[in-house]
C-alpha cells in the first residue's frame, strides 16, 4: 500500500472548480460569448469562437492546450498533404496522422493501464517492471476530439472531404466548445462548412436552443445528479448492500448515465443551435429499444456511427458470413469498451454488448418464428416484453460499466437476488427502509429521485404526442413549462459540482 499518494492534481495545477456546463462560470461564459458572437462582424466570429473554446479548454488544465494544439497541427498538415498526395504516399500520411493521434491517446489515457498490467505480469514472472508510474492526468475530452480529428483525416483520405486550408477554422472544428469535451463527435462534412456560414440572430432558433439546453440541464442537475447520490453510495460500498438496494442502484445508474450523457448532449446541441450551428443528434430514447441492436442505434449515436464507419465497415461489416460478422462485432465492441475507459471492466462491458449482438444475430430467425408466451397476439404486451428485456440486458451490462472492480460487479450480480424472501415483512421496519431503500438518504430525496425517473419516462414516451398537442403548442404554456423546469432545477437540483460521467473519457 502506497502511503505517499501525492495529490497529482495539485502538482500540475488543476483548479478546484473547472468550467463545465453545470458550473457557475458557464452561466457567465455562455451569454457573453453568444452576445459577442452576434455583435461582431461575421468575418471575426470564428476567431471569437476559437478564443472562447481555448478559454473553455484551458479552464481545466491550462498547459494541456499545447497537447491539443499539437494534435490540431498534425492533422491540419496531414489533411493538406493527404489531399495533394496519391497512392502509397497518401496512405502513409493517413497512417502517420492516425498513429500520432493514437499515440497521444495511448500515452494520456492508456499508459497507466498498460503499466499497471505490466506490473502484474512482471510480478507473476518474478521480474521488475522498469517503466515508472507517471501519474498522468487525462486531458479533458481527449477521446472525443481525437476521434473527431481522426474522422477528418479519414474523410479527406477517402476523398469525401476537402482539406481545410484555414488553420484557425480547422482548430475551431476540433475544439468547438459546445461539443469539445463530450461530443457529439461530429463529421467534417456536417460541421466545417458551418463555420463559414453567416448566422443571423433568430429569436425562434434561439428559443429552440435555449429550451433544449434547459431540458439538458434538467436531465443533468435534477435527474442524473440526484440519482448519482444513491448509485454512488451503493457502488462505492457494495459489500454493505444486497437485494433491493443493489437493484435500486443498478436501475438508478441506468437512468443516471442516460440523463447525464444525453443531458450534456442536449446542452451542447442547444448551445450550438442558439448561435445557429446544427450538431448531430446523439440520443434517441434508447430505453424504448426493443432489441440491443436497436439500442445501439439510439445510444451515443455519434460514437456508434463512428465505430461503424471507421472500424466495423472496414473490417467487412455485415457483408460477410455470420462468423466473420460476429468477429467484426466483437472487435468493434471491445475497442468501444476500451474507448470508454482504461479498465478491464469497461472492456468487459463492451465485450458483453458485442456478445448480445452476436447472440441476437444467431437467434434472430428463430425468434421471429416462435411466438414467445403467445405475446405476438398482443402487440402492446409484446412491445413491453421486448423493451423490458432489452432494458434488463442493458442494466446487466451497466453493472460492469459502473462497478469499481470485477469483484464488485460479481458481488452485485450474486447478491441482487438475496434478501427478497423477507422483503414484505421488512417494509414495516423504518431502519430497513431508510438504509436499504432510501440508501441512507432523506425520504424527500428518494421521492424526488423516483419522480424524476417517472417524469423522464412520461415525457420521452409521450414526446411525439406532446410535440403535436395543440394546447401545449401555445407559446405561453410551453414557456411556463420551461420556467417550471428552471425553477425545479434551481430549487431541487443537486449542485454538488458533479462532473459529467463521460468527462472521464
Amino acid at each position, binding site marked *: 500500500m502506497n502511503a505517499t499518494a*501525492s495529490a497529482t492534481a495539485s502538482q500540475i495545477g488543476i*483548479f*478546484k472548480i473547472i468550467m463545465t456546463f453545470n458550473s*457557475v462560470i458557464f452561466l457567465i461564459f455562455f451569454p*457573453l460569448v453568444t452576445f459577442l458572437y452576434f455583435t461582431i462582424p461575421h468575418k471575426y466570429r470564428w476567431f471569437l469562437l476559437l478564443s472562447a473554446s481555448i478559454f473553455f479548454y484551458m479552464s481545466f488544465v491550462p498547459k494541456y492546450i499545447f497537447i491539443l494544439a499539437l494534435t490540431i497541427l498534425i492533422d491540419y498538415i496531414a489533411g493538406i498533404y493527404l489531399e495533394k498526395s496519391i497512392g502509397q504516399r497518401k496512405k502513409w500520411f493517413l497512417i502517420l496522422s492516425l498513429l500520432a493521434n493514437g499515440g497521444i491517446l495511448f500515452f494520456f489515457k492508456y499508459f497507466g493501464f498498460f503499466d499497471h498490467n505490466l506490473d502484474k505480469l512482471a510480478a507473476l514472472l518474478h521480474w521488475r517492471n522498469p517503466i515508472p508510474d507517471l501519474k498522468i492526468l487525462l486531458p479533458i475530452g481527449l477521446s472525443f476530439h481525437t476521434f473527431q480529428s481522426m474522422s477528418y483525416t479519414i474523410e479527406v483520405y477517402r476523398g469525401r472531404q476537402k482539406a481545410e486550408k484555414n488553420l484557425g477554422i480547422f482548430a475551431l472544428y476540433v475544439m468547438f466548445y459546445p461539443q469539445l469535451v463530450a461530443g457529439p463527435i461530429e463529421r467534417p462534412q456536417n460541421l466545417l462548412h458551418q463555420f463559414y456560414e453567416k448566422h443571423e440572430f433568430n429569436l425562434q432558433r*434561439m*428559443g429552440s436552443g435555449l429550451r433544449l439546453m434547459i431540458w439538458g440541464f434538467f436531465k443533468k442537475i435534477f435527474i442524473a445528479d440526484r440519482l448519482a447520490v444513491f448509485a454512488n453510495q451503493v457502488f462505492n460500498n457494495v459489500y454493505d448492500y444486497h437485494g433491493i438496494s443493489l437493484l435500486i442502484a443498478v436501475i438508478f445508474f441506468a437512468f443516471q448515465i442516460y440523463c447525464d450523457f444525453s443531458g450534456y448532449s442536449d446542452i451542447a446541441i442547444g448551445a450550438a443551435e442558439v448561435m445557429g450551428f446544427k450538431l448531430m443528434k446523439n440520443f434517441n430514447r434508447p430505453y424504448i429499444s426493443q432489441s440491443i441492436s436497436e439500442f445501439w442505434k439510439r445510444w451515443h449515436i455519434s460514437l456508434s456511427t463512428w465505430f461503424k464507419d471507421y472500424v466495423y465497415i472496414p473490417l467487412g461489416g455485415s457483408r460477410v458470413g455470420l462468423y466473420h460478422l460476429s468477429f467484426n462485432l466483437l472487435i468493434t465492441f471491445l475497442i468501444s469498451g476500451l474507448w470508454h475507459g482504461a479498465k478491464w471492466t469497461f472492456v468487459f462491458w463492451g465485450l458483453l454488448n458485442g456478445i448480445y449482438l452476436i447472440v441476437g444475430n444467431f437467434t434472430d430467425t428463430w425468434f421471429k418464428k416462435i411466438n414467445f408466451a403467445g405475446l405476438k397476439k398482443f402487440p402492446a404486451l409484446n412491445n413491453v416484453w421486448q423493451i423490458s428485456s432489452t432494458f434488463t440486458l442493458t442494466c446487466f451490462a451497466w453493472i460492469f460499466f459502473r462497478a469499481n472492480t470485477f469483484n464488485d460487479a460479481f458481488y452485485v450480480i450474486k447478491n441482487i437476488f438475496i434478501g427478497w424472501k423477507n422483503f414484505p415483512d421488512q417494509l414495516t421496519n423504518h431502519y430497513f427502509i431508510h438504509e436499504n431503500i432510501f440508501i441512507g438518504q432523506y425520504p424527500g430525496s428518494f421521492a424526488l429521485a423516483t419522480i424524476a425517473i417517472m417524469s423522464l419516462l412520461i415525457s420521452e414516451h409521450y414526446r411525439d404526442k406532446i410535440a403535436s398537442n395543440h394546447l401545449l403548442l401555445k407559446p405561453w404554456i410551453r414557456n411556463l413549462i420551461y420556467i417550471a423546469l428552471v425553477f425545479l432545477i434551481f430549487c431541487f437540483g443537486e449542485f454538488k459540482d458533479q462532473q459529467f460521467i463521460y468527462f472521464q473519457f
Partner: protein
Amino acid sequence: MTKKIVLILCFLSVAMAVFLLIGAKSKKIGYKFLTHDKGGDISYGDLYALSGLTDFKFPIPIVNYTSATTLDEADVITLGDSFFQAKFETKSMPDLLADNLKLKVFDPHEILGNPLVYLTEHNYQKGKPKIVIVETVERYAIKRMISYNEKINTTKKSGIRQKINDSAYEIFDQTNVNYFFKYNIFLNPIWLWLNNLEFKTLGITNHNISRYSTNPPMLFYSEEVDFDTNQHLYDHPEVYIQNIKNLKDTLKKKYNLDMIYVIIPNKYTIYNYLDKNGSYNNFLPKIQTELSKNNIDYTDLYSLYSQYAKTANAKLLYYPNETHFTAAAKELLVNELSKKIQEYRITKGYIDK
C-alpha cells in the same frame, strides 16, 4: 410582445453575466455587493453560510485578538488548521494556551498541512528544545498524514514562471466566481429562499450538509459524515502512522522540537447520536491505538469530548451552525494540553522538577 420579453431577458442575462464577472474578478468592486459575513464581531457560522438555512442562523461572537509572539521567542509552537485559528467567543486556542501556561506560544495564523514546509520556508534554526503542537481535524487527518511524507520543494519558481502561474490562476480559477454568484446582493436572497423552500418542503439540505438534527438544532458537514468513503484507508491507519512517526523524529532531529499530536474529533464523531441513523466508524480510537504503539504523544480528545458530551448539563462542544468547536471544547483542550506540556517540560528537562 413575446419578442420584447425575450430580448429583455437576453439583455438581463448578459448584464448579469458582466456583473458577476466584474464582481468576482475585482475584489474591490465585488466586496461592495456581497451580503455574506464581512468580518466584524459576529459570525453566523460556516455551516449556515454553506446551507443558508434560517432555522440554523445563530449569532456567534468573535474575539478580535492576535498575539505578537514571534517564532524565535516562543516556548511553545502550535502548527494547525482553522481550529487553532478560530476565535469564537474566546481567543484562539494558542492564545488561551499562552494565558493558561503563562508561556509564550507562537502560532503562524495559517492553515497548515505539513508543518515541515512552514519551518523550512521560514528557515527555522535548531536551537533550544521547544514543544510543538501539531494539530489536525479528524476529517483531514489522512490527507495530512500523507503530506508529512511528501518531498518539500524549496526551490522557488523563476520570476517569469511564477508570474505566468499566478496569471493563469487569476484568470482560470473560479472559486471567487462561485462565491460571488452565491453571496451577491441580487442572487443571494433567491438562493436563500430556494434552499429554505427545499428544506421546509422535503427536508432536504444541500450537498454540503448531509445530516442534521432539529431537536436540538445541529448541522453536520458532509465531509465529516462521508469522510470514510475510502474505507480501506481508514481500516488500515497503521500505514499512515509511520508518517507521523517520521514527522516526530524529523522535528526532533532537525529542529529540536518535541511533538505533541492533536487530532480534533469531527462534530459528527461526538454528536452522531443526534442523527437517528448516525454511526461512527471508530477512526479515532483506531488511530490512537497506533499512536500509542509507536510512542507518539497525543491528546485523547475523542474520549474526553465523548464523555463530557454525555454528562448532565454539558455545554455544547461544537456550534450548531459551525464546523468548529465552542469555548467549552477549547477549555477542555487547553486544560488537557497544559497538563501534558507541563509534564513534558519537567520530564524532558526544559525546567527543573
